[in-house]
């Protein structure tokens, strides 16, 4: 009998997700459905934590060579489950006046299952299935408010772009599949699309007539995943979708789905295409710098807070992308340190950006608008929420000692580490410089919101964010402050994950 350890968290979550609409119909209660979904998340998380506790770092359990649970995938499964958890808690009050809440929670759980599949995937097809599961669920979630014109527009846009990018990515995968068939002698096992086999085939293809095909596949994969992650120049859809979606779902897209895309990119490039790294490191580095710069520059001029946060998400993806070229250097210590920086920033970003979106969501339920100007005088109206928002924004800007500072620090210092390693990596210095200059630039628009909340005068009436949303915001707040004050276990977990990821 197969070992189900690796897939148990996924099965649990999928079952809870599929049954959620039934629970809604039978229980006739939104609250019960949300609690059911939350129970699924907690049970799934329990199995992941159980793996953490019963296996030492470096160990891995796989299910039929398709999905693997190791210190990398477990960390990200936990991250995705945390995101799902706080989104569900926040949704308890955010969608309580809507119909079809059963399906809403079901889709959240299924989307999360897809993300977890991507984290654990061992081959390209599983990876693709995971991405599609998440994407299809997200399209429906973005369109959840059927009567909202903006929501429908956003969902249509998201669906068309998403389907296109999936097709492009799938084309890249099929090209790689063709390449593996040319080199049957290097393949191991019956599945030619595992990342190891692709890595071996790509390595064998270097210098043969197949090399241009691999190159084309790499370009298609960058474009396909680039759309999912909203890298510049594939980012146009993101602000519209983030703005039009229900804000809790925006939080999930920014904190969860985006990370999934980045993980997929990391897996394909760092394991599958590592043999041709000289061809793509500089390209990815340039995209990273372009993405963070464009994201930040456009964010400066936004008047809508959700759009500003959307552009800031684009910029943050650019920061995370720094880890990709750094993790491709040949020194394993430097590579794993750089990669750990990327992982760490994904984790902190999930909480600080998710928290910021949840605050916007929470305030919109009590009739505070979604424009930067609507936050004037918020410190008087809702002191705790304003304080939490300030912490989230300063953390995003990288002000010490908050979570975002530590992850940016590990990320940027990873580039410096690679730079001082040897001559070939000289240009990586500029990754750190670009990251740091962009952080300074981003401070401008974050500080503007803080200024509006604390310095400007606004309406005098107090506002109270609903309890459930306050709890979800509280989770993010505690995470940002907690990681900031005691980052050691998180950095260690990211280093373990990087070791597991790179197989060292």
């Amino acid at each position, binding site marked *: 009998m197969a070992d189900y350890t690796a897939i148990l968290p996924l099965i649990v979550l999928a079952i809870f997700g599929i049954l959620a609409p039934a629970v809604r119909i039978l229980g006739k209660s939104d609250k019960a459905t949300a609690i059911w979904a939350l129970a699924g998340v907690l049970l799934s998380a329990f199995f992941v934590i159980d793996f953490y506790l019963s296996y030492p770092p470096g160990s891995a359990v796989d299910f039929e060579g398709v999905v693997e649970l190791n210190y990398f995938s477990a960390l990200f499964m936990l991250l995705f489950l945390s995101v799902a958890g706080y989104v569900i808690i926040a949704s308890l009050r955010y969608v309580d006046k809507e119909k079809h809440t059963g399906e809403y929670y079901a889709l959240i759980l299924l989307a999360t299952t897809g993300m977890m599949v991507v984290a654990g995937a061992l081959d390209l097809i599983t990876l693709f299935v995971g991405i599609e599961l998440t994407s299809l669920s997200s399209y429906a979630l973005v369109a959840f408010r059927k009567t909202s014109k903006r929501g429908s527009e956003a969902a249509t846009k998201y669906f068309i772009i998403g389907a296109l990018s999936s097709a492009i990515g799938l084309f890249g995968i099929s090209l790689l599949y063709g390449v593996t068939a040319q080199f049957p002698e290097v393949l191991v096992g019956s599945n030619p699309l595992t990342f190891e086999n692709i890595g071996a085939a790509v390595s064998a293809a270097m210098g043969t007539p197949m090399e241009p095909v691999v190159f084309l596949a790499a370009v298609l994969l960058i474009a396909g995943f680039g759309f999912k992650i909203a890298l510049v120049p594939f980012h146009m859809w993101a602000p519209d979708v983030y703005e039009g979606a229900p804000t809790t779902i925006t939080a999930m897209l920014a904190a969860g789905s985006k990370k999934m895309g980045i993980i997929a990119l990391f897996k394909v490039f760092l394991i599958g295409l590592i043999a041709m790294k000289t061809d793509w490191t500089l390209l990815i580095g340039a995209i990273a710098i372009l993405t963070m710069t464009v994201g930040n520059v456009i964010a400066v001029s936004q008047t809508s807070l959700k759009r500003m946060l959307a552009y800031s998400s684009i910029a943050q993806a650019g920061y995370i992308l720094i880890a990709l070229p750094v993790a491709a250097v040949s020194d394993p210590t430097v590579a794993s340190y750089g990669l750990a920086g990327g992982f760490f920033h994904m984790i902190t970003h999930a909480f600080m950006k998710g928290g910021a979106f949840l605050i916007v969501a929470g305030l919109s339920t009590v009739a505070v608008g979604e424009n930067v100007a609507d936050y004037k005088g918020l410190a008087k109206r809702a002191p705790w929420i304003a304080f939490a928002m300030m912490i989230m924004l300063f953390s995003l800007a990288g002000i010490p000692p908050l979570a975002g500072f530590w992850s940016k620090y590990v990320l940027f210092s990873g580039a410096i580490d690679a730079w001082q390693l040897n001559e070939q990596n000289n240009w990586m210095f500029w990754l750190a*410089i670009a990251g*740091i200059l962009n952080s300074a630039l981003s401070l401008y628009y974050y500080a503007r919101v803080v*200024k509006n909340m604390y310095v400007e005068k606004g309406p005098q009436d107090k506002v109270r964010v609903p309890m459930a949303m306050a709890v979800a915001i509280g989770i993010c707040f505690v995470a940002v402050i907690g990681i900031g004050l005691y980052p050691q276990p998180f950095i260690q977990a990211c280093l373990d994950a990087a070791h597991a990821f790179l197989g060292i």
Partner: protein
Amino acid sequence: MSELYDLLQDINILTLLILVPLIGAVLTFFTGKNEKAARMLPIIFSATTLVLATLMLLGFDFGNAGINNYQYTEQYDWVPSLGITYHLGVDGISVPMVWLTALLCFLAILFSWDVKNRTKEYMGLMLVLEVGVMGVFMTLDFFLFYIFWEIVLIPMFFLISIWGGPRREYAAIKFFIYTHIASLVLLLAIFAMYFVAGGTSFDMIYIQQQGMSWALEFQVMMFLALFFGFGVKMPIVPFHTWLPDAHVEAPTAGSVLLAGLLLKMGAYGLIRVAIPTLPAGARELQWLIIIVAIVSILYGALASLAQKDLKKMVAFSSISHMGIVLLGFATFSAVGIAAGVFQMFAHGLITAVLFMVCGVAQHIAGTREIPKLGGLAHKMPWYATFMMIGFLASLGLPGLVGFAAEMPVFFSYGFMNGEWNWLILIPIASVVITAAYYIWSMQRVLFGPLTEKIDTHHLHDVSWFEAAPLAVLCIFIIFFGLQPGLIYDYIRPVAEAISALVPMGV
């Protein structure tokens, strides 16, 4: 080792110096609508900090005061996987700075007695600022240093942008972005030094010991980055433009702390980190430091001469006086470094008086425009006394604390065996400009017939909460002017040790 030292070491005095204002800040933020508590709590907590700092000053062990002989040290692991520790310690350079921090914060809070707009936030932020500055002066871990360095920005940003003058928002954002960019360059240099030193420890002492053996080219590069990072905060010309804006718009107590403490952080970073860690790089760039120092001194003095706003004049004079600190450091001689550090201390005391005097003018006369004021001494004798002591100390009158700092700086160029020592004639000549703008402005503000451009019927002398801090500062200005040795005793051993690190001779 005295009993006092052991006692203070046992109670972790340095952590207390951070913790007491921090607790005070948190409590102050939670005082709710109780205005009286929002005033009294910060005074109590900052006074406690001052008492602790004074004890630390008195307990200092002079028998053990060389370089890297830090006292009252504490070290705990924080992030072992990156080599970051919570490591505090003080030596002869930091002890006077820590005491100055405690003193100025206490006096600035007292001076703000009549703040009525959002009192608890104002007072709480002042205490948070104290936490940050204390941390910068005491930490021995690069990472912790950077964190405290950045923490300082946030309360200052709010102090300017909430309680500032008409252009406060522009000034606050400008201050924030300027100094943040400088901090980030600093951070880059810290990364690079950390990795080149082995990537295992952020300990300043460890990196400093590694640093001396680094290649000259790398040292020069790192020194340039650190010089920029610290220099913007000092500030040095041409990166000074945030300072006049920030000062003019900041509330008086904010200006006192900005000029009295925040500028010192930049100079402190140079002497604590940049010069001892990268001595050969510093030696290589000596010409640059001297030129920047001289330009800052001259530019600051000339710009002061041209100002109509009393506070802007004082702000520009800060640039000039911080240039003298840099001029002292640039000699790399024991005398020059010691005098530079003493100038930091002296300028902290003097500039606090100057900004308080400007604040009182604004408060009582309703304007700081020099042409609109005149003959204030007739109606405000105490005010005139404080202002004269401050201005005369700042222009370097012998017997006051400024002279005891500037004189040795100029003097130290006699010891220098480089080809640059003739340049000292320029800053010496600039003393005349300094005297000119102070005496001229005093003449126009205090003496002559009482001004008719403003309503003078309601003019009254300084209130008690303004007079008390001014009096305390003036007493210290005179006391340390007559007894500078008391502070030099702390500084000298470290200055000698740092000077010995720098390879002299070309």
